[in-house]
């Protein structure tokens, strides 16, 4: 049996979410833009889904635009705001701990004449609101920050950062792909203008996500075509995906899941700390995501650890899945001041409500042996 501890990369679909999708492949396969009954059934389902997702964050339905996932939502938000507001300024602020789907958008935007400022973080992975305020200039049009960090799990303080953005009248975008559903996001309370979310990190299907756009946000359309999603994101609607996404949100909103995952994570953390020379990275209090646990193992490499875990049927990751094939040291771990050898020795375990206490016991039985064996081989 596989023990899946890589839920920050992607998750298993919830059976109810999958069940909800199937009729929209088999029976109600109409195009939501068609006027006939089949089309209208699809449209109704999309609007129902939109309402569920809007309500999950205290938003109105017309503020939700469906996309193909987190990467598209991030691209849409950042490029869309940048180009729609370039008459106002060309300066954008982000952080050193972003996901590649934000970081690489900025690299490209620099080639298009935009100026990017990158904020550092403290040793637990938090942006200081004072640093943000100092970085804002008259030309600043957008601030974009990862809400729940995907490697170390730090959850940024939306109240404080949002207030700074509001005070200086700049748009505030958050990448909430890891944090959505796992911690509160409420647009009534949090002064956030754009929110990227996706489905496959919360036990929904892959290939669907959404962007929350506060009413009045000036943004360029992402795809041009048939005018779907109020002309902001053309393309035939992914009806089964959207329906499955909404179902995953409905189920995910049960707060008991978070408490359960926290309990498992705590058990895993306690067990890891019993292994000699192990260090846990990122916040370990309520400012950390419930499902992400990053640990550095002295003297051995993360890839070798996850390789041996894999041979035992346990899935974990060295860093983000998107960075697995590069040799670069992880930027987030560098940003919190981890030395290179600790970065090389880092493993990310990420949990979900489908994990069990027995699975954690099994991991804690196998892992110390693996660490011991690799340390026997290592010169350090």
């Amino acid at each position, binding site marked *: 049996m596989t023990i899946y501890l890589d839920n920050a990369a992607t998750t298993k679909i919830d059976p109810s979410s999958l069940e909800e999708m199937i009729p929209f492949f088999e029976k109600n396969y109409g195009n939501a833009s068609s006027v006939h009954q089949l089309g209208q059934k699809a449209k109704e389902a999309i609007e129902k889904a939109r309402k569920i997702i809007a309500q999950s964050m205290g938003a109105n339905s017309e503020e939700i635009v469906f996309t193909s996932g987190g990467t598209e939502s991030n691209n849409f938000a950042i490029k869309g705001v940048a180009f729609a507001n370039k008459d106002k300024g060309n300066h954008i602020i982000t952080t050193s701990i972003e996901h590649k789907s934000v970081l690489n958008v900025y690299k490209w935007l620099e080639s298009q004449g935009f100026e990017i400022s990158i904020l550092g973080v403290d040793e637990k992975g938090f942006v200081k609101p004072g640093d943000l305020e100092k970085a804002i200039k008259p030309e600043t049009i957008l601030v974009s920050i990862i809400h729940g960090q995907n490697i170390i799990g730090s959850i940024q303080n939306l109240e404080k950062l949002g207030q700074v953005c509001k005070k200086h009248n700049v748009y505030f975008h958050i990448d909430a792909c890891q944090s959505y559903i796992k911690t509160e996001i409420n647009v009534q309370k949090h002064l956030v203008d754009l929110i990227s979310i996706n489905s496959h990190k919360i036990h929904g299907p892959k290939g669907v996500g959404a962007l929350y756009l506060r009413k009045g946000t000036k943004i360029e359309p992402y795809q041009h075509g048939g005018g779907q999603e109020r002309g902001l994101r053309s393309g035939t609607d992914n009806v089964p995906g959207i329906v499955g996404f909404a179902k995953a949100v409905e189920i995910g909103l049960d707060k008991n899941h978070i408490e359960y995952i926290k309990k498992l994570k705590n058990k895993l953390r306690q067990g890891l700390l019993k292994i000699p020379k192990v260090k846990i990275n990122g916040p370990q209090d309520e400012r950390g995501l419930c499902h992400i646990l990053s640990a550095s193992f002295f003297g051995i490499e993360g890839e070798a650890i996850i390789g041996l875990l894999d041979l035992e049927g346990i899935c974990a990751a060295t860093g983000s899945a998107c960075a697995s*094939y590069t040799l670069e040291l992880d930027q987030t771990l560098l940003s919190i001041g981890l030395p290179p050898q600790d970065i090389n020795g880092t493993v990310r375990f990420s949990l979900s409500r489908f994990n069990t206490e027995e699975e954690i016991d099994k991991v804690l039985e196998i892992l110390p042996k693996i660490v011991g064996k690799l340390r026997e081989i290592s010169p350090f």
Partner: protein
Amino acid sequence: MPYSKKVLDAFKNPHNYGKIKDADGIGKVGNPVCGDVMWLYIKVGKNKKGEEMIKEISFETFGCIAALASSTIITDLVKNKSIGYALEFTKKGILEELGGLPPMKIHCSVLAVDALHDAIYDYFSKNKRPIPENLAKRHRILEKEKGVIEERYKGWIEKEEELHQDD
């Protein structure tokens, strides 16, 4: 995992690792790009023809799956073989033995060849033997790279020495 069966087998069943205390030659190499480190120890003896051969070989590696597998495989390949044979062993040779590696990981197998050759260099220089020019040239490059690695792991190696004192 994106590795050949041969690589995975060697990764699963590492052997010939650990220190050789009275080694005749030691090759300590590190890769400044990815941070992998390999220390290789040899003891030299003579075969029936009177040629010098690698009688014992052992490694210590801090590295990824590819580096660990290459370490085991290279020790298997040159154990009880002549020094001449070991010196002719190339990067291409080990890569073929491994059944290939993902392009990003090729440098990990190079580390094993470098460690082997540098252990032979060490043996030659300790015994005041003439050193082939290409071996000396490679050694100079490896020394430079090792400098980068030592700088990178400075605090760490010291910390490890401290920890060992506690043992």
